[in-house]
């Protein structure tokens, strides 16, 4: 039994018939081939699979594709505009906010949502805002610095 869904992913409308149990993250990865969104756990702890759903950061491993019917999804692949990196992508690069890069797409999209809600966060607010995203490589320090840097750049823009 499948269900029709129509989901706008990175600006393009996609229509598919999907099983009810298909996770949004596997719809993105396996059905659409958008493998930038990673799966790091199966209990919604790690945040690697974070995408924006109608502008809000969600863990796509705990959203069913059918629940995203009609929604607008932004993945890491859709963040750069006309080949120009998003300020967060740029700041993560500049500040060495990544090592193996596996948590990075989720980290960046969570930070996107964080800065949307709070454009000038304090360091403590950034650290708190990232509590749903785990990184095992960086020790977070440079991620926090990157988010701060991006906030500064975005405020100037």
């Amino acid at each position, binding site marked *: 039994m499948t269900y029709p869904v129509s989901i706008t992913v990175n600006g393009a409308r996609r229509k598919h018939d999907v099983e009810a149990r298909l996770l949004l993250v596997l719809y993105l990865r396996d059905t659409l081939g958008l*493998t930038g969104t990673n799966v790091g756990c199966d209990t919604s702890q790690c945040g690697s699979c974070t995408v924006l759903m109608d502008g809000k950061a969600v863990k796509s491993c705990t959203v069913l594709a059918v629940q995203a019917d009609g929604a607008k999804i932004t993945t890491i692949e859709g963040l750069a505009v006309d080949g120009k990196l998003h300020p967060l992508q740029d700041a993560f*690069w500049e500040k060495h906010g990544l090592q193996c890069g596996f*948590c990075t797409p989720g980290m960046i999209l969570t930070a996107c949502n964080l800065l949307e809600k709070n454009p000038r966060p304090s*360091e403590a607010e950034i650290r708190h805002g990232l*509590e749903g995203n785990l990184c095992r490589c960086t020790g977070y320090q440079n991620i926090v610095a990157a988010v701060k840097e991006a906030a500064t750049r975005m405020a100037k823009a």
Partner: protein
Amino acid sequence: MASRIFGSAIKRREDPRLITGQAKYTDDFVLPGMAYLTVVRSPYAHAKVLRLRTKKAAAMDGVLGVFTGQQMKDAGFGAIPCAWVVPGSDTKTPAYPPIAIDTVRYAGNAVAIVVARDRYLARDAADAVEVDYEPLPHVADAEKATQKGQPQLHAEAPNNVCFHWKVSGGDVDAAFKAADVVVKERILNQRLIPNAIEPRAALAQYSSAMNEVTLWVTSQNPHIVRFLLSLDTGIPEQKIRVIAPEVGGGFGSKIPHYPEDSMVIFASKMCGVPVKWTETRSENYRATIHGRDHIQDVEMAAKKDGTILALRAKVWANLGAYLSTASTGIPTILHGLMLSGAYDIKNIHEDVYGVFTNTTPTDAYRGAGRPEATFMVERLVELVARKLKMDPADIRKKNFIPPFTDGHTVATGLTYDSGNYIAAFEKALKMLDYAGLRKKQADLRKKGEHIGIGFCTYAEICGLGPSQVAGAVGFGGGLWESAIVRFHPSGKVNVMVGISPHGQGEETTFAQIVASELGVSVDDVEVTHGDTARTPMGWGSYGSRSTPVGSGALMGAIVKIREKSKVVTAHLLEAAVEDIEYDDGKFFVKGSPSKFKTIQDVALMANVAWNYPKGLEPGLEASAFFDPPNFVYPFGAHIAVVRVDTETGEIKLERYVAVDDCGRVINPMIVNGQIHGGVVQGVGQALWEGAAYDESGQLLTGSMMDYALPKAEDFPNLELGMTETPTNVNPLGVKGIGETGTIASTPAVYNAVMDALAPFGVGKLDMPLTPEKVWRALQGARR
């Protein structure tokens, strides 16, 4: 002369693909006709497998096959080889079948595999495989497992003892007799779960016509995986291509050759399609190796003035149910030889028992053996200081090995390369304002607030290592590295290396080395790694060896390029080869630097070979191998400041000062990043992380919900400092920095908490120092 690119914090060239989602990790690969594999795993810690019913699963829609361990064995797939057998220790190496055949020995042990058209169908079919088990008694604790009457895991290992390894130096008994004070402690260095954020995955494409296979796998060392696969799959080494594409962290857990590597190859062979397996996180917690898990009985002897005389230890190291690739080397060579750390301790003795238990196999986890040694010595130094009422800073200063640049041999027989421990420690104390902080601590105590200051002054062994030593200590491979530097006609450069970084940034640091040593732009250098078909043989990335050993090979190739370039230049400038000099990308006649050829000029001429020295081979390409004469020994001083809430038991890390010395620094941004990550991981062990099994042998901490990993909010900004003491072990004078943070931060934070709790008379707690444990200890102390 090296240009300024060496030593600069340039941005990483790896990052553009990683921040845009274009990087390809193993699970991102999709091949035509590809099927998915799911592993059926034992829910029991120890059981006989009485019967496997696979028919129902095999008949399900979309299922290509259900296979057992016996079928895999019959198809010629052998036991997973153990690649480290510590000599002189009567090591037992029981068979480790990739799929259990008649007995399962830990909860998570594979009993069958299912191959189906998609991930969901494979999981459905796995649930339909019926297995009848007869549960057997089990044991999870390593010390208990060696006692009489305990369940036996392997017939060839009586009392579950895999090996008994010893190390001795000096006269320990005499030193203890002569001691003024002796301190003793039982340390539980708890079991940890590595938690690379990318779970493991493996994808095999087998060709029956050619009997060859390509394996994409989450590995830190594809060449080792290929070598081991040639031993257990029946496919010859030259027919196996192993690709470690983007790898999402490893921390040791992606060193081993795992059963699933063989399973996907077997399944691809049986089903005639490419087969992929991707671990779920809960599966990762049971099926990927764990780390640490030592029970240590330790005693230290000292004189009244604080001079440490001797260290004696007895250790039960939990190896889990089977021997993973390097497991016996971790609690022995990488642990026991480093017991004296940064101190001049002349008398050392340790007995290590490697023990089989009904738990997930253990192996290298960031630090691998050295954290277990460093914690031991750092804790006991602290206890001696406490007993003698000495300042813990003073006792360290008193016992440091004095500064040395040309080797220092310690009691266990290792010769450290270079060190200046006092300098790093003094720098850290200054950054902290130690005297001021002690005063603040005393003032706060009067107000009922409790902060603690904890030290770890460490020296560690990495840059593994000389191959002859590897052979002598039972490691089943070499530990040299290789590199190829290839100049194209356009003057651009491809570099192929045997190491296999997975987040450490060597694509950048190695490009920096080539740029600074050959005078090309860093953007003109491309570094390739992680593919046995595209890179020369190398032993991979672990033991903080990629830069110290890998750069040695790279420098060898660079020197060959320079020498050949001098011959070409001499021909072009009609000069004698001996008169040609090199500086910053230019080759010129001695004394007249205005007459020169650039490396790009040489590269073009060498590639077209129109006007060329007679008898000289065309092309500008060099290949080199580097086998280091010794390990490298980075060192440093870490200081943690914690605040303990005596009402709730909660611990807050207030400050963290780290001064590390990894010799010459190629890219300070990357070095600092390694330290940040390492420190945070080690703090995790001190405060939150710990794997636990329940009475039935089930892993209680079986998911990220139950196993507490460090989060951004748990940390202040770390304060880093550096000293630079080069090594003469490799051409660039560099030491490894991948593991120092993890090695140092666990004891630093532990000692800080104990310092804060000292006024309450709390002398000992087992890690992790959770609020509950601290609160209970405080309640006990108040009673």
